[in-house]
Each structure stands twice: as C-alpha cells, then as structure tokens.
C-alpha cells in the first residue's frame, strides 16, 4: 500500500468524523503508517451533511485533501448523491444498505458493498453505535489496517464505559464484512 484515500459521508450526529478519526488513529498510532484526517468544516449542526477525508500512506503525506477516494464510506442518501461520482473507478463503496439505494451515479467498475449497519446497531442495543459497525465493516472489507490496530483505536476513541458495546459493534461489522468480501457485487 503506497497511499489510500478515504471519504466518509453521512449526517451530523451519525458519528461521521469519529469514524474517520478511528481509521486515522489506527493507522498513525497503532499501525506505524501516516494518516491525515480533514473534516469538512462548516456551520452544519446535527442532521445536516457531514464528511471526513482520511489519507493513509506509508510515506509522509503532502497534499492533504481527498479528491477521488479509493474507499467511500457512506451512511446517508445525500452523502451518496454528493460523493458517489467522486469514487475512483477501481474504488470500493461501503454503504448502509437499508438507507441508501445504489444507482448509476456510482462509477462503472467500482465495487459496492452494503451493510444494514443501523439495524445491527439497534440489535446491539444502541442505534448510536452505527458508525462503529461501519468502522468494523471497513476493517473487514478492506484489510487496509490490522484488526488489532482498529480495535485499539475504537477502544481509545469512545467514551469510557462504552468500550464493550463498541467493540461488539466493531466485531459485528468486521465479521459481516469478511463474509461479504467473496460475494462483492460489481455494479454500473
């Protein structure tokens, strides 16, 4: 891996920034790589569009923005509409498949892998951990960073007392992702 660019998109309140933060933290603190996180910064409050850009690389990162991501992690229909066309044709879309419907906005050749992350989170007891289910899904599908590093980053990033719940959420997404990899659908 020389350099991987990731865009995370969703609604304010879904934990979009934390999702990007955990990937960056896993890479730069626990997996000896370089990572840069940029968050779209604006007057948004909960409920409006929100996104994060993460670059993970073996070497120091110069240009910090993500223009054309290798991985797109999407949790809301609006974020899908906005960011799907930017995905590299060789890239992978990871999406909440009970909230988002894939259409021809996705570049031809790009992979699309869905997960009912909100339902899984509700089954675990708290809808709030939806983003951590997505973190696990990202880890399981991409293999970009080690599972150990990702789990450490989850533990180190969530409020004290919620570590166990969040690790269960991570593992749920991770296992679903690992199982799904073989059955990746090509769309577009």
């Amino acid at each position, binding site marked *: 891996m020389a350099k991987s660019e990731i865009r995370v998109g969703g609604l304010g309140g879904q934990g979009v920034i934390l999702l990007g*933060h955990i990937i960056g933290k896993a890479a730069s603190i626990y997996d000896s790589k370089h990572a*840069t996180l940029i968050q779209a910064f604006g007057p948004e409050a909960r409920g409006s569009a929100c996104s994060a850009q993460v670059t993970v690389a073996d070497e120091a990162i*110069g240009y910090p*923005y993500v223009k054309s991501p290798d991985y797109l992690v999407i949790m809301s229909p609006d974020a899908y509409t906005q960011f799907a066309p930017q995905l590299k044709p060789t890239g992978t879309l990871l999406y909440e498949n009970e909230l988002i419907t894939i259409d021809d906005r996705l570049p031809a050749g790009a992979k699309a892998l869905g997960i009912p992350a909100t339902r899984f989170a509700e089954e675990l007891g708290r809808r709030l951990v939806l983003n951590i289910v997505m973190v696990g899904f990202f880890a399981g599908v991409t293999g970009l960073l080690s599972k150990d590093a990702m789990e450490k980053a989850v533990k180190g990033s969530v409020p004290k007392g919620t570590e166990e719940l969040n690790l269960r959420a991570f593992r749920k997404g991770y296992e679903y992702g690992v199982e799904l990899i073989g059955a990746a659908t090509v769309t577009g």
Partner: protein
Amino acid sequence: MHADPKGVLTGIHFIDGDHAACEGALAAGCRFVAGYPITPSTEVVERFASRIPLVGGVFIQMEDEIASSIAILGGAWAGKKVMTVTSGPGLSLMMEHIGLAVITETPCVIVDVQRGGPSTGLPTLPAQADLMQVKWGSHGDYEIIALSPNSPQECFDLMIKAFNLAETYRVPVFFMMDEVVGHMTERVEIPAPEDIDVVDRKWTTKKPGEYNVYQAGADLVPEMVKAGDGYRIHVTGLTHDERGYPAMNPVAQDKLVRRLINKIRDHREDIVDVREDGVEGADVVVVSFGITSRVAQAAVEQARVRGVKVGHLRLVICWPFPATRIAQLAETAKAFVVPELNMGQMVLEVERAVCGRAAVLPIGHAGGTVHEPATILNKIMEAAQ
C-alpha cells in the same frame, strides 16, 4: 530549563493542529490566555480552557479581541507566559496592542489561524494572506518574529520555540497557522518534560533601586521584573528612557526605536529558520511556508522525476525573512518559484533578496483551499525552460 511536567501531556496522540498548538503552549509554560472565540482558531482556546484548571493557570474569554490583546500584556507583567489566539478579523482588532507589546517589550505569543479575507471573508477556509499584516500591521517602526507550522506535530514543536523566542527577545511572536493546519488531524508525539527545553523569562538579579526597567546590555534585551516583587516601575506606550519614564524627544526616540529594531536585526541570522531540500546547485528553487510547503514538496518531487534540478526552501520562521540565504542561492539558481495562499506577499521579499539576479515566478492564490500540486509543477517546468 526543562518543561514543567504539569503542562506536558507526554504520549502519542491523534489530534488536530489547534489542539496541538494548545498543548505546545502548555508545555512551553503558558499559564494565562485571554481570547475571544473565532473560527478557525476556537479549538485552541476551547482546549486551553478545559486543560488549564488541571495545570494551574487562567483562561479568560474577554468581550472582544481588543480586550484580549491587552489582557495578555497585563498577564505578562504579572509574571506569566501569555498567549492570545485569533483569526483575521480579530487580528485586525489587536493591532493597537501589538504596537504596545513591542514598545513595552512584553513577551507574548499571538496565534493567528489564518482564513480567507479581507474582512469576514471565508471563516472556515484557509489563506496565508496575513503575512504582511503580522509584520507591518501596527503603526510605527518595529520588528517582530513569526513562525509558520505545516502540521499538527509542528504546531506543538514550534509553539515551544515561539514562546522561547518571545522570552529571549521580549517581543510579540506570531504563530501563523491556517485553517487546514488548524483543523487537520495527524499523529502528534509529545516528549517527556525533561526532553523539552523552555526558556525562562529574563528576570533581573538587581535589587530595587539599582534596577532600570529598560536598561539593556549588549544583547539589547532588558531584564524584566513582575508586579508584586517590590520594584517601582513605569511601563508606557510613550517613547521612554531607561527608567521607563516618558521622554518625548528625538534623541530618546532614536535610541529606543533603534534598540527595539536592532535587538531582532542583530540576531537575525540566529533566528532565521529554513528547511532546505536540494537547494544547493538547483536550477529552480521553490520558496514556500506553512501548508503550501506540503503541496509544494509534492510538486518538487514530481518535477525531479521529470529531470528538473529543483530545490525547496521552506520558511519555518517567516519573519525575520531569510534574505541572506535567498541572496546566496540567487547566485546560482536560474529561477525562484513562490507559491503562497495570497495574491503575492512573500514573493515581494523574495524579489528583494534575489535583486534581479534570477527570475522570480509568483503563484498567487486567493485562498479558500490549497494549490493543486499540478499548478506548482507546471510553474516549476516553466521556470526550468
């Protein structure tokens, strides 16, 4: 001396530039901050406000930036290391008190997380258009020091340097971040307190009665006292003599202004800090600072792949400007390429130093984002022709 362990969050963190700048200030010994929140700098003071009760110190959210910039001067004369934090519109309001800090020789750090201007401009988007303002924004003749970090790690490391320079030269030191560096999250390693060198204030050893508040030795920097130590001192924005009393005549003016300027100019070569990559013998030298240096480095490496002998000189300290070094490089370089997130400020200094001996190609940008590496690459290729 070493850093006070109370302020040092030793360890490896994944934090943004604003937070790292705050940690740098705490590690440097800053114990008083007055500020007024303004995007994209607010996270610096938010973190300081939450951390300082545990470290031991004071944060005050003032009514505006004018009040903030005078409150820190009071804090410094009460004996603390001090900082204020702002962005463009706030910086404009602070200009009066930057001059006061200069003439009263009050050590302080002013963080400017730059955003697009003029006026309210682009609150949430970057620029590097305050370069000349930090140098010349207040009235009168003076010199200041300005640093420009390009990563969260440097926001920590260089902030310690900023405080050390403020104390060494008793001068306002500007910390010129920008929105990208401020809101960018990366790995930040904070060393153990015993591995952080901090400069203590230049306290006097003279007794009350023997001490003159503005009497300077060979380094042109007077010794300082603080309120409550039993010294009777007078600190004023009027031109003053060595005792600090107003002395409004051309002789006193000449003596004071020359010393204020020369205490920086005489140490210019000690203060200047540049990072060089392959500049010796290069045909093209890219000169950059802050966030633009990261984009420029990507372009420089691409140009080398295409066979261009190109070097990169990055200003870690923008003021004083490294004119001597650029003049040396102008003896052999064919061209200088100067990308910056403004419409041409640092390039004026580069032109002054190059003095017609090589071509100088600016790459202006109105701000709101960073340059595309391809834009800089194309200019390097043009310069190499």
